[in-house]
């Protein structure tokens, strides 16, 4: 079994127009910038993107949005230091937004990966974000029913990966990456390092390979935060 893919371009080549794509990261940490840029190069349009944020500056997710490839964004916090790309599209009515509380977003993704079609949470009860959702009472408290979230593809960033798709992460760059790996039909992981098979300690694997379909090396990956301080623009 060898899930490694020789190039970023090949790793994302079959993502079609209209696909739903989970993209890991919280702000810039854990954002698979190199995979996103490969997706910009590949050019599929009308994508539904699931990410915690809505991009920052002119690289990564912001650049994907700027390229006009994203029809809808599902996220919790479309604000950042420099959100002008998303803001302009949104205010011009050129992109749909589904706003989801961050914990609900995480749990919906985890539910998608775990085969749980719906669950109840107190989060958002009584607020505008619960509108139209079923409500139920358990043990005297009110809860909102939320549905799972799955995607055709997940683009995630990990630290080390082996050919079987086992992954480790780096610090807070873990965030949404492991749960998105679970929730997509095809999970594509960029890794800073390919680990020889057997070199990852089975105790410390965070994402077991069963959740990963493709592993592609992106050595010395860019940090969105650093790129934005350099006012980088992609492409």
């Amino acid at each position: 079994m060898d899930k490694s893919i020789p190039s970023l371009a090949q790793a994302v080549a079959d993502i079609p127009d209209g696909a739903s794509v989970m993209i890991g990261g919280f702000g810039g940490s854990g954002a698979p910038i190199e995979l996103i840029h490969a997706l910009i190069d590949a050019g599929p349009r009308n994508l539904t993107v699931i990410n915690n944020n809505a991009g920052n500056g002119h690289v990564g997710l912001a650049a994907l949005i700027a390229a006009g490839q994203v029809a809808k964004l599902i996220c919790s916090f479309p604000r950042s230091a420099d959100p002008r790309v998303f803001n302009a599209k949104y205010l011009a009515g050129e992109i749909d937004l589904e706003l989801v509380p961050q914990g609900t977003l995480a749990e919906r993704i985890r539910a998608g990966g775990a085969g749980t079609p719906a669950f109840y949470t107190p989060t958002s009860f009584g607020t505008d974000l619960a509108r139209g959702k079923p409500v139920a009472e358990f043990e005297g408290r009110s809860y909102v029913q939320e549905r799972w979230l799955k995607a055709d593809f997940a683009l995630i960033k990990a630290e080390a990966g082996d050919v079987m798709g086992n992954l480790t992460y780096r610090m807070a760059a873990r965030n949404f990456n492991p749960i998105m790996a679970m929730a997509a039909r095809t999970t594509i992981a960029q890794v800073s390092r390919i680990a020889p098979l057997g070199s990852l300690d089975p105790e410390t694997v965070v994402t077991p390979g069963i959740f990963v379909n493709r592993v592609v090396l992106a050595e010395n990956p860019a940090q969105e935060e650093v790129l934005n301080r350099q006012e980088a623009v992609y492409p």
Partner: protein
Amino acid sequence: MTNPAMIDLEAVKLTNAQMAWRAAQDIEDGAYVNLGIGLPELVAKFQPDGREAIFHTENGVLGFGPAPAKGAEDWDLINAGKKAVTLKPGAAFFHHADSFAMVRGGHLNVAILGAYEVAENGDLANWSTGAGGVPAVGGAMDLVHGARRVAVITDHVTKSGAPKLLTRCTLPLTGVGCVTRIYSSLAVIDIAQGRFVLREKVAGLSVEQLQSLTGAKLHIEAPVTDLTAAQVA
């Protein structure tokens, strides 16, 4: 309904190892597989050359290998049957909720389970004989609704010769409409559109004889091939 034709099943039926061998032939390279306790566990021994399946066990291991030598057991490294196992390169440990996220989330390519009864509508009964005693279910109800493909490996008839493949299960169900293929000691049968579709049968039995040992109609959609298995033990 016991073996009406007085067929000498012992002469024609596959051994347990042969049934397991046959089931193993359908497991593709790189598949993630959960094998039920007992007879299904044998399947792991018969992976075809050049293919490598990754075995999952409910208690939190992916990528385990065969039992260690006697005396070399580590009782922190066991499978769902509580037997000591070993690790292959690329293995991973995880907790029970993550383990069943793999099962329920559709991440396993196939689960192969034992059966008391299987019905032509895909219902499976394999956890309770309905009699008194202490009931126990384990992970079977999760596996049947989680794995992308659920297959059963079973003797074609009970020890007393009664069919285990039925129109409807009589014992408490493990899952509804979940089984899609049966590897029996006499045949390979698919379940599709609520019908048993005969694919392979042992050469020593006619279709009529096989039908007489089966509790629901066997449909034939394409030439039935001989069920052959390597001489394995």
